[in-house]
């Protein structure tokens, strides 16, 4: 049963990767990579149960944190072209 869930997650990851390669705008690619990262977290968790080693959940938790930070960082980089503090002309300063 875990193997079937893993196969379904892999097919879903392939579809998300197709959109990430194909996507017309950069935002489509960021969105698809974010969904791909979430599916990777789920795949790591399911694989831990499949292999009988639930210690993989620690890796899944860290991967979820990195995925969130990476998506926010890439979104900010695309909008402002750098990751530093605001330049001063924009009061709000970030996304």
């Amino acid at each position, binding site marked *: *049963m*875990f193997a*079937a*869930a893993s196969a*379904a*997650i892999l*097919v*879903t990851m392939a*579809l*998300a990767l*197709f*959109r990430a390669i194909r996507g*017309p*705008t*950069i*935002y*489509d690619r*960021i*969105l*698809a990579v*974010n*969904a791909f990262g*979430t*599916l990777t*977290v*789920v795949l790591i*968790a*399911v694989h831990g*149960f499949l292999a009988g080693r*639930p210690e993989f*959940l*620690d890796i*899944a*938790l860290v991967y*979820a*944190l990195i*995925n*969130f930070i990476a*998506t*926010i960082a890439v*979104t*900010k980089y*695309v*909008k402002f072209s750098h990751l530093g503090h605001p330049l001063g002309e924009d009061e709000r300063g970030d*996304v």
Partner: protein
Amino acid sequence: MALLADIASWACLIAGSLFAFIGAVGIIRLPDVFTRMHGAGIVDTLGMGLILAGLMIHEGFTMVTVKLVLIVVFIFFASPTTTHALARAALNGGVTPVVDGKDAPSAKSSERTDGPSKT
């Protein structure tokens, strides 16, 4: 009782896989980036939540379930935040939403405008 837990776990896993697949088909087929966020939302909430709920039911009350709950809670907070930031970035970056069945707008990701065009 163990059989009941197994059946519930399998049902959650299958339903979660199905919802994740439906969300990915939405990411492929929907017309522009704002509607594709809807498909990504299905993957991030129903797909991820049901699969991890199935794993929780399989495991019972142990430390593993605590870690699964932590993952679910974090993604439930992180996914709307990411989608909100991405939607604002796309709107400020010149992507106009497709309304009323018109064709998808041409990709102008590098051009910054003042906001969405009011048509």
